């Protein structure tokens, strides 16, 4: 496995700057997830690493080698696309074995059988090995595509939203499996997605990308707990962080220049009215089973907080709110660091 280095990479399509002066190192054996909405430049970035696009400026290194001008085939990367691409006339087994049979590899058939069977078990498609690729469900096809990439053992893996076409349950299972496989193989993975749960649960580090710019890079915990901007704070966490104009909460001891206060749902506690707590009104209660989301109205704003599923509320009930560990942002949306208590 190898590291990936992007140095001042830029790519423009007509008027659109898809990637702006992007520098990033994917450390060897790291699972780096780029999180961003559609149009953020995620896929373009991945295609620049794979050699499917040429950068206008900057350089790409894989394993210490400058591959900026190298053809895709010369880069030794495996790419898993959002839409699975299998050979329809081949069986699942032959699809998986395909990269191992290429003239460049020449793996003996016995060894191929061992590796194909092992990966098929991991991805729970071992019973489908003799099926034609076209006789599979979407989820199964995508697992075959992932399996085929994993079997190749290239220098790096590039994955473009590989789980997005799967149903929720399978996606949850494969998140865990993919992360485990990556750890077992010590694989270097650069993975792009718009799904914050995928980013949070799988990544060694998350890079938050928007409009071609890398806004923050750090471990899931760092990015969630110490976001550097309102944008990043709102991008991670479900339900979203509550954001309030600073003037609505004058009682808080705020750092200079604070214009917005951010409070994660788990940091907004419901207590009795009065006692200096912020007065709010219960608007709606959502019972999600494991937890309850309480929608509140506070000075004309909607806030969401968590409550125990067995705490009962009355519609329009008046409650008091307590803020713990609020985050502060300046007028430009940048976070103001406060000394941690």
């Amino acid at each position, binding site marked *: 496995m190898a590291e990936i280095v992007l140095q001042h990479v830029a790519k423009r399509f007509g008027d659109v700057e898809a990637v702006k002066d992007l520098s990033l190192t994917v450390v060897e054996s790291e699972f780096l997830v780029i999180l961003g909405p559609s149009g953020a430049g995620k896929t373009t970035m991945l295609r620049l690493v794979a050699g499917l696009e040429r950068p206008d400026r900057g350089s790409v290194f894989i394993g210490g080698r400058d591959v900026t001008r190298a053809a895709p085939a010369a880069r030794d990367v495996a790419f898993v696309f959002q839409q699975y691409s299998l050979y329809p006339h081949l069986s699942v087994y032959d699809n998986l074995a395909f990269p191992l049979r290429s003239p460049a590899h020449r793996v003996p058939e016995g060894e191929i059988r061992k590796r194909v069977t092992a990966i098929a078990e991991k991805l729970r498609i071992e019973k489908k090995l003799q099926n034609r690729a076209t006789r599979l469900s979407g989820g199964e096809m995508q697992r075959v595509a992932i399996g085929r990439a994993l079997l190749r053992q290239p220098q790096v893996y590039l994955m473009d939203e590989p789980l997005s076409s799967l149903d929720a349950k399978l996606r949850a299972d494969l998140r865990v499996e993919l992360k485990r496989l990556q750890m077992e193989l010590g694989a270097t993975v650069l993975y792009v997605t718009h799904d914050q749960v995928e980013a949070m649960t799988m990544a060694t580090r998350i890079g938050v990308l928007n409009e071609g710019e890398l806004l923050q890079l750090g471990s*899931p*915990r760092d990015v969630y707990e110490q976001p550097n901007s309102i944008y990043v704070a709102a991008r991670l966490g479900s*339900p979203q962080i509550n954001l309030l104009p600073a003037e609505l909460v004058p009682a808080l001891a705020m750092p200079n220049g604070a214009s917005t206060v951010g409070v994660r749902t788990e940091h907004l506690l419901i207590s009795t009215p009065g006692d200096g707590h912020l007065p709010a009104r219960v608007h709606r209660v959502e019972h999600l089973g494991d937890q309850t989301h309480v929608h509140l109205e506070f000075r004309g704003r909607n806030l969401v907080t968590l409550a125990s599923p067995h705490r009962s509320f009355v519609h329009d009930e008046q409650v008091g709110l307590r803020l713990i560990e609020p985050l502060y942002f300046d007028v430009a949306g940048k976070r103001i660091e406060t000394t941690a208590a």
Partner: protein
Amino acid sequence: MAEIRVERLNKAFQDFVAVQDSNFVVDDRSFFVMLGPSGCGKTTTLRMIAGLELPTDGRILLDGEDVTFKRAAERDIAFVFQLFALYPHMNVAHNIGFPLKCEGVARAEIRRRVEETARLLRIEALLDRKVSKLSGGDRQRVALGRAIIRRPKAFMMDEPLGALDAEFRRLMCEELRDLHDDIGATTVYVTHDQLEAMSMADQIAVMNHGVVEQIGAPQEIYDRPATMFVADFIGSPPMNLLPFEGLLRRGERSVDYFGARIDVPEIGEDRGIGGLTLGVRPESVALSDSAPIRGRVFAVEYLGTNQIVTIDIDRAKVKARLSSRMSARVGEHVGVAFQAPKLVVFNSTTGRATRSALYEDGDRG
């Protein structure tokens, strides 16, 4: 507005039984969700209520009136498909007013009701815009406006948010539910997404293979699943289901899980030795050094608000929802404890929950 009563409803397509002996009541002004995997019969049931499909057997009563064989147009029910179907060449006002125009309502009256509907959906400012120029959210609002402007007795909605991405769907769920609270129309909503069902419903009917497995309020279904199917379908991650062999005696308060005594709610029935399954919600699992069940941490998924820790206990993998402050490392040896009052014991053969204090409490409450 209306109460909908479904009695012994059946639907067969040749040999295939799509809906089998369904019985339920949708209360007036309530939001009723039919939840289940594809092919479970939820859409067929909805279409029969709307009059788009005729039942093989059974009755449908709308406000006490038997409408089983009435035509769709005579039922005063609005059917909402995927919300995106708008007329692209018309502006917002014309899209919303279209159903009234079809009914020959006077132009001034249409104008009045379009404005009233737009106000409800907070899209007054968009009335003269082309729909092709709108954001995804505003299009959904326009489509909703078109559905509600007729003020029918009830709404039937078939996965209306299916095509949207997850975050946007959450937002639209909230708006739909708020809108429902404002206009109070009886709504039957079909989805395969349990989170959608949990967050919006007054009552959920969970369906599987044409059969209604359980009907209840979201929290009720979550806390006291009637069957293993329901336990597994609701919750993310779903309930841990741990099979074992054992017997049940009325009045006992524990079961033997492979030599470990697990405290459970007081058992309410006798059963000889046989296949049982212990059901444990992830938030009822705790890590404890003194617990009799041992395992190794298999995976850790950090979610910010909390984390999901998967523990391999040899015979099964158990998922625990833990505070994100708690440290858990892959490979670490841990003890696994369950919160007794919340546990369910299922009969593995029938798939049904066995009687226990947990369910009796539910009946009283």
